[in-house]
């Protein structure tokens, strides 16, 4: 690069490899008048070189510099790659606070409406599906029961057992100080039956099945499989969601019962080994303290947890936007939302059945 008589001479290569250095070199001519940029010595140029020339012309606009002595190749490259003729991108208008709130509310209204439609559809078709298997794949309920229920037995049993063990251990130390060893049975029975069994099972199912339902439906939506089903005159909710809904409805009471029993078993081990209680005394106390009402409330709410998981998983799955990225996003949202709603439902249940003024 040379500068003489208001002319800037550029030489040899104007490519992506030389442009960073040229930009650096150019800073020494800052403020100097440049009316012509001579390109006669330029032997090769690429789009980075042309972008550099554009930048130069823009920065020196007050001198109105001209590109001079271009050979055929340089001229052709400049005419192809110049960005000077492009319109400046218009920055998108920023919405004000009230527009944002309004849009948020409208979105909330729309999503609530969609969710209500979906819930109605799922319940309607599940009820119909009990009597009429048309529009479902044969054996799909059993297959889904295996995936949602049987495959989850191991992990739910293990975690319930550990949780029962932890609960009993934590309380045993305290109870022992007061000689109230036998109350560990009350604690285990009531906490596992009314709270821990259902909620632990629901949270594991939300993580396992909620995510798989959301990602399966989202992937099907992205790859146009849902559209394909519609074109074959098959209701996607009936075909995909209903088997899962029925399967989880069958599985959840069984899983919750198992979780509760295994959790109490964990407590029993602590009671026998650490609190010197016999198994017979422990179980007598458990059955004495438990009421049918507690057991029914525990099992009853688990149905709502299960339905929430399927509904939320399908809602997010059907509302996926974009491609692979969208699938990942809705899967996360579905798991977070199902755990959130499971806990909210649990709180409501406690308020309704256990809150006495």
């Amino acid at each position, binding site marked *: 690069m040379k500068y003489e008589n208001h002319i800037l001479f550029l030489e040899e290569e104007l490519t992506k490899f030389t442009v960073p250095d040229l930009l650096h070199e150019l800073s020494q001519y800052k403020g100097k008048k440049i009316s012509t940029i001579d390109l006669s010595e330029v032997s090769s140029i690429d789009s980075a070189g042309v972008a550099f020339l554009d*930048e130069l012309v823009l920065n020196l606009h007050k001198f109105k510099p001209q590109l001079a002595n271009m050979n055929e190749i340089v001229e052709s490259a400049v005419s192809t790659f110049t*960005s000077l003729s492009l319109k400046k*991108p218009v920055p998108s208008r920023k919405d004000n606070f009230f527009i944002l709130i309004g849009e948020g509310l409208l979105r909330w209204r729309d999503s609530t409406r969609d969710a209500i439609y979906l819930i109605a559809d799922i319940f309607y078709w599940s009820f119909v599906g009990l009597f009429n298997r048309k529009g479902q794949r044969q054996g799909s309920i059993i297959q889904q029961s295996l995936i949602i229920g049987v495959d989850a037995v191991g992990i739910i049993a293990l975690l319930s057992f550990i949780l029962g063990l932890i609960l009993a251990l934590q309380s045993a130390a305290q109870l022992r100080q007061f000689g109230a060893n036998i109350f560990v049975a009350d604690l285990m029975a009531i906490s596992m039956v009314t709270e821990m069994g259902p909620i632990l099972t629901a949270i594991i199912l939300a993580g396992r099945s909620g995510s798989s339902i959301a990602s399966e439906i989202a992937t099907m939506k992205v790859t146009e499989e849902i559209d394909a089903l519609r074109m074959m005159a098959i209701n996607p909710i009936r075909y995909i969601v209903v088997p899962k809904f029925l399967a989880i409805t069958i599985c959840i009471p069984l899983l919750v019962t198992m979780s509760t029993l295994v959790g109490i078993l964990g407590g029993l081990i602590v009671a026998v080994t650490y609190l010197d209680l016999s198994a017979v005394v422990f179980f007598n106390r458990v059955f004495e303290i438990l009421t049918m009402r507690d057991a029914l409330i525990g099992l009853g709410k688990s149905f709502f947890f299960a339905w929430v998981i399927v509904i939320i998983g399908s809602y997010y799955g059907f509302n996926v936007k*974009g491609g692979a990225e*969208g699938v990942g996003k809705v899967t996360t949202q579905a798991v977070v939302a199902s755990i959130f709603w499971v806990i909210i439902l649990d709180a409501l249940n406690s308020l309704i059945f256990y809150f006495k003024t």
Partner: protein
Amino acid sequence: MIEPIISVKDLVAKYGEQTVLDNVSLDIYPEEITVILGGSGCGKTTLIKNILRLFEPVSGSVKILNKEVTRMDELEFNSILSKIGMLFQNGALLNSLTIFDNVSIPLVQHTKLTPTIIAKMIRVKLKLVNLAKVENLLPSELSGGMKKRAALARAIALDPDILICDEPSAGLDPLTSASLDELILKLKNLLKMTIVIVTHELASIHRIADRIIFLDEGKVLFSGTLQQAKKSVIPEVETFFRVGKFG
């Protein structure tokens, strides 16, 4: 004698037990447009992917820019890759990024250019493929043809020495396809690019091809200039060019 820029010798590729490429040897010469032809499933895409090490060949040698790449270490191969642009069959844009960001990836990763220069280059490349207005959209918001053009903009972002296009005009309307051909010719002349194209479109082949390589059942059936291909007496090649002339 001009040195080939890509040279493949006795390449064998298999999917499990099935041999897809059987002792394929071919040369691709610099500053030419080479079209790889052949029926569906004859191994065209496999050939490209084996050349670029996306698949590991069973045996044979691949030289790019006079360097053996099959046994090259990752770092050295990356420097070769930065001189190659690839347009995939269905675009292969990153779905989580806008079109602008997609095109910026090679520029940001492989050059020391400033953001203003990079932005200018991206806008020019998008303008070249007639996509000036979509830079802030996500790939999922574009049509199939637009995605392909955006992917081409990404492939030529670095003005590569070699551009490889896997079925560039499939799914495009004839006008866009013709303008894409024009763009490819322009790139070849301006940037002295070597271009390898896998395509079936006869119109496109007539417009741009310098050299033809015809694959059939994993073997090279014909290799030569477009003129030679048109006069070829090899039945498959002859049929291909005859059928394409609308009966």
